[in-house]
């Protein structure tokens, strides 16, 4: 080895003399700037999300009037509920990222929250037990496709009722009344949606909040992500200036970061409904019956107090159901 080194050195000298090349120039370290990581699927929208054709469906929150609620053992033969009972499981599309509404409890690994307890109530009404409830995580964007493809029986995932969605799915009566507000860092000086000119504002893909941000008069720049917690990540990483969506979701985010606060007045009403596949009117009436029972027997209030009281105060009266027939 040594001899070969020596030979190499000798040759090197010969080569240098022959070719006259000098030593390589030292390279100064080039200037690089940090690249911030992005949540999967995060996109800054250059154009507002496609606006739906203006539709007038009357009052979208008016749902189908429930009949008397049958016992789990006496579901009408041939009904959607009987079919689900025969399948042995109720598959519900839920969220795993909205603190207190549908979130993964890191201690137990279980999905829990207000929406999940609602799903359990529906499962109990069909099976007599919530053991038959199967939760399937869907993103905002996946809610309607999941119902159309039949991969879930229903979606209970902070889903606002509107005319556009009513063209694709059926909605239950309103089970939660939310309003869109703005979440910012405490020292930001931002007071509401009107102060967000040219600021980057985060919302999830496919949510009504995203379109409301794009439509706001102050002209914010909408940034879309897959899940609400991705918005908090981007806010904490200084990649967006604000998050804007329903107050209850914002309260859940704010609870995870004491240096943030929810500001401004609600500038959009977001009535939440449970979504079911188009045409399953028997199921809608049945679910409305379940919700109605929760309104009256105190389950709704208990559920609210269990998950939301420490974020939003004690439970108000449950939203009043409206029916179109």
């Amino acid at each position, binding site marked *: *080895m040594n*001899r*070969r080194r*020596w*030979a*190499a050195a*000798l*040759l090197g000298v*010969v*080569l240098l003399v022959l070719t006259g090349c000098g030593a*390589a120039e*030292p*390279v100064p*370290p*080039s200037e*690089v700037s*940090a*690249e*911030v*990581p*992005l*949540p*999967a699927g995060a996109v800054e929208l250059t154009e507002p999300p496609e606006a739906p054709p203006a539709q007038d469906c009357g009052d979208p929150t008016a749902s189908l009037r429930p009949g008397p609620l049958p016992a789990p053992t006496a579901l009408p033969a041939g009904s959607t509920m009987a079919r689900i009972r025969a399948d042995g*499981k109720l*598959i519900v*599309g839920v969220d*795993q*990222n*909205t*603190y207190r509404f549908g*979130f*993964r*409890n*890191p*201690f*137990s*690994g*279980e*999905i829990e929250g207000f929406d999940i307890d609602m799903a359990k109530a529906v499962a109990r009404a069909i099976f007599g037990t919530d053991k*038959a*409830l*199967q*939760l*399937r*995580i*869907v*993103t905002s964007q*996946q809610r309607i496709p999941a119902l159309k493809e039949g991969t879930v029986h229903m979606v209970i995932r902070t889903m606002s009722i509107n005319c556009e969605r009513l063209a694709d799915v059926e909605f239950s009566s309103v089970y939660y009344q939310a309003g869109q507000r703005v979440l910012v860092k405490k020292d930001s000086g931002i007071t509401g949606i009107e102060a967000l000119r040219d600021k980057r504002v985060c919302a999830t893909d496919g949510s009504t909040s995203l379109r409301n941000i794009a439509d706001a008069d102050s002209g914010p720049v909408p940034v879309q992500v897959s*899940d609400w*917690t*991705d918005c*908090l*990540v981007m806010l*904490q990483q200084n990649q967006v200036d604000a998050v804007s969506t329903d107050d209850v979701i914002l309260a859940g*985010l704010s609870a*995870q*970061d004491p240096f943030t606060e929810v500001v401004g007045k609600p500038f959009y009403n977001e009535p939440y409904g449970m979504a079911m596949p188009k045409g399953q009117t028997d199921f809608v009436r049945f679910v409305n019956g379940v919700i109605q029972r929760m309104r009256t027997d105190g389950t709704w209030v208990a559920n609210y107090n269990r998950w939301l009281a420490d974020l939003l105060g004690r439970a108000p009266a449950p939203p009043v159901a409206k029916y179109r027939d």
Partner: protein
Amino acid sequence: MSAPTVTRQEERDPPGPGRFAELNELARTTPGVLTMLTAALVVVGVLVGVFTAISVQSRATALDDLTTRSGPLSVAAQEIYRSLSDADATATSAFLAGGQEPAEQRARYQDDIAQAESALAVAVAAREPADLTAGSPLATLSAKLSVYTGLVETARANNTQGLPVGAAYQREASNLMRTELLPAASELYDTETAQVSADQDRAAGFPFVEVLLGLVALGVLVAAQVYLRRVSNRVFNVGLMVATGAALVSLVWVLVATLGVMANVDQSRESGSEDVDQLAQARIATLAARADETLTLVARGSGAAFEEDYVKVAERLGGDSGQGGLLDAARSGAISGEVSAHVEAAQRAWQDWQVVHGEIRAADGNGDYTGAVELAIGDAEDGAAARFDEVDAGLREAIGLTTFRFTDEVSQASNAVTGTVIGVILLAALMAAGSVAGIWQRLKEYR
């Protein structure tokens, strides 16, 4: 003793001015021709010596590169990919378990990161600063590995407080890993294996230059002897014969050494690097399958894309019902019974794992999420985690043994050229000295 011959040439040329005229004058006399012949032989000797030595040296350098650079670097690149992929699968599955992060999982993640960083340091140290341009795989890996670990720690900090945003940080980390770090590691591995192959080509090329130079030296020496014989009527000239002998020995030496190198390097390729590459591909696919399996569960129902990827990877790995996949190819290419046994063990574990994977998907599909998670990451002996470890261990052993064969063949090749450079230089010097001595003897006669 013959009378000096009058030169026949240059009769028509008018004597030019200056140095050219002197040379021309010199060329008219036999002693002049002899002096120039000496100079020519010395120059040819030196040039042949230097260029043959350079050529042999570049072969030796290629072999050195194989043992000390490209060989170890391709191993390092493979290690970077493996440890990063395993780190991400481990960190992600720690979230699956819920509750306190198991201590072994944390230790495994930390070991993976330490391993990746150390392998990365090796890979970076082997490069010139100018090679680390922005966007090159090494620059990406160096810049983003720390970002990745930062995100994982943020995820943990949030997770220990029971905050769902922790899972979002973990997803962001995983996204960074899958879209930037792993592709960069894979590109690095491809580059380094291509370099191994290039070094093998460089080390095992037929010695055209050496043979050509050797033949030129011999030709010039024979021509010189023919000329001397004509002008002096002596059949043999000891000096020139020694020189010719030296040139011949040098040529034969280079030829024998090089042919040995070519045989060893071909072996190192056929039963070394190519098999290592095949095994490494299988191992990388195994890791991808495992990551897909856990991520499908983490996504809880919206992980169809991961499961689709799993199916694709599984087909690449196991082929159609165990036939024709990467594992099969690795087994049929095994260089020894021992390697073959390790690959077979990996293959068996893979088939068992496939069965468990089916159970996991069935449990998850039927709503038994907890059962699916337990099957996937629980520490049962017949769980997916244990099966994955078995496949990985089998392939790791096989890679170790095959890499050893590669290094062995290359170091044998290296030994074959040891001393050749020095030998070639000394023989060239001997050739020049012999030529000078031989012609000097004739020249003396003209004093």
